[in-house]
């Protein structure tokens, strides 16, 4: 069915409400933030309207560069870990009976209802020396004495993967369920073991979904600022932690805004690059 292009302004009617909401709740705040990022900070208080680049200049240092690099690396690692774990899990989930699938999905949804703070403190207990998992390892003879597994990079990664995994599964689930199950069966009749078929049929056939999921988890992980503080050392703090610190504790709104704008630009750039590479790969 071919639709006619809209003729009059009234035809765009259904778009007015969402467009208005987007304008008020997204474009205006974002515009304000961009404007604030150019404002002049007043020492010990607020800021005055101006057009200065000092906030951005301050950002261009080895320290903030390092933090930005670490934030991006952490988000990419979380995204990759999540997809690597979620893909086989979701595939196996999709082959269970309907009833079991529903039970699993409800369980995953309930993890989403946990707040970041609870996840952070739960993992800090689990990874602690006094009451954590290492005591269990000592019991079964894997370790000689309990050790503190946090604060560390591994602890930050574990907490963030735990938090993002349900999202990853819920994003992958519809695509995997819709995938023609005979593709895997065909691969098996053609001499591929189930595990090989998973890698050379299922993964390539879901290429675009996997790409989109990686980007989604990456952006989700980039915004995390509580878990790195709870489970990590200062060198594991992300740019989001520093933005929070500047905005709330240092009252330096213009600098916080400048960092936020920079983070958004870098993120958009990376996503665009990923899509570009993805498209090139498709043509080849």
């Amino acid at each position, binding site marked *: 069915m071919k639709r006619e292009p809209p003729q009059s302004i009234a035809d765009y009617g259904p778009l007015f409400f969402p467009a208005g909401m987007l304008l008020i709740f997204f474009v205006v705040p974002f515009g304000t933030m961009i404007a604030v990022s150019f404002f002049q900070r007043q020492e010990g208080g607020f800021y005055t309207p101006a057009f200065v680049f000092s906030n951005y200049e301050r950002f261009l240092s080895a320290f903030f560069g390092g933090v930005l690099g670490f934030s991006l690396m952490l988000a990419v690692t979380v995204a990759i870990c999540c997809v690597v774990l979620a893909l086989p899990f979701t595939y196996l989930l999709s082959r269970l009976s309907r009833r079991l699938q529903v039970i699993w999905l409800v369980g995953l949804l309930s993890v989403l209802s946990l707040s970041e703070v609870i996840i952070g403190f739960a993992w800090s207990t689990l990874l602690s020396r006094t009451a954590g998992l290492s005591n269990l390892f000592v019991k079964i003879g894997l370790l000689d004495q309990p050790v503190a597994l946090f604060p560390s990079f591994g602890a930050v990664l574990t907490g963030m993967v735990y938090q993002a995994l349900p999202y990853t599964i819920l994003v992958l689930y519809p695509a995997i369920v819709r995938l023609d199950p005979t593709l895997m*069966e*065909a691969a*098996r*009749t*053609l001499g*591929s073991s189930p595990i*090989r078929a998973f890698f*050379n049929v299922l993964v*390539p*056939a879901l290429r675009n979904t996997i790409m989109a999921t990686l980007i989604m988890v990456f952006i989700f992980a980039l915004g995390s600022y509580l878990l790195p503080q709870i489970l990590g050392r200062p060198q594991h703090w992300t740019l989001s932690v520093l933005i929070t610190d500047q905005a709330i504790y240092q009252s330096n709104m213009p600098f916080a805004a400048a960092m936020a704008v920079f983070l958004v630009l870098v993120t958009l750039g990376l996503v665009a690059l990923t899509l570009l590479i993805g498209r090139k790969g498709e043509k080849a």
Partner: protein
Amino acid sequence: MSGLVLNNVSKQFGTFTAVDNVHLSVPHGTFVCLLGPSGCGKTTLLRIIAGLEDPTNGTILLDGADITDVPTHRRNLGMVFQSLALFPHLSVGENIAYPLRIRGAAREEQKKRVDELLTLIHLPGYGDRPVSKLSGGQRQRVAIARALALSPKIFLLDEPLSALDAKLREAMQVELRQLQQKLGITTIVVTHDQREAMTMADTVVVMNGGHIRQAAPPIEIYRKPADTFVADFIGSTNLIETKADSSGAATIFGQRVTGLALPAGAQKATISVRPEDVHLTAPGNGAIDGTVTFVRDLGGTIETFVEAGGQQIVAVSTPRERPEVTAGQAVGIVLSPDVCVVLKQ
């Protein structure tokens, strides 16, 4: 023996029995069609042969070796799925080369075999095209070529032509049969289309309710159906009650039919008479009395509906032997004994 043998094969899904104690032997190089209505167990049986379902009971032998517990990917078979299951991320050539790649064949060898197969399916030079750019019939051929790439021992097809339009389907049936004869490969096709089965098969296996009702060459299935189900499912037929009279001779609607014999000791039986074997004459003279109710003249064939003994009997004739009858006319029905097939109860 060489070929494929199924012994006592059953498959249960929960309390539902999809395949019930099936015996079937497929000699090497034959073309077998599993034919039946939907839900008769034919696809399940094919999937059991492929190893995609484990039978609840029974064994499967291939050339004398028990393959019941051999996983699908080691069975050396080719299968074409109803959905075709072509890999969307691969080109035509890569799809066909997939099984060769899995076996670690050299690149040149893969290319040579792909070119060979593309020629075989009349699509030379299509290797680099994406699968999505092909027509339905072309995809069909690619799926066939991919399944044949490793020269498998058994070639399985699950309703392979159901997605094609009627004309293309007829052409592909002939092509598939010619291909099978050229390669001499043992082939098993699942279909619900009896025309398809009649066109292609050496042996038609009619299934219903998980059982094999009859397994025989197509013409025998048509001429000598084993039971009511087969007679009714294959082509159209007249199912007529026959009773024994006081002297033990067979009668139809009270009229004695000389030469027709009921099974020993039976008081009554159902016989099947194909419409083209029903002859209409003038009433009397030992013929069964009937009244014409409708004449359907289709040009190529003429179907005459006759009411006799409270039942409708259809006679089909060619224009050459056009019976000059009209609705309401009294006619005599002649059934020669050699066309009356007595069915098992």
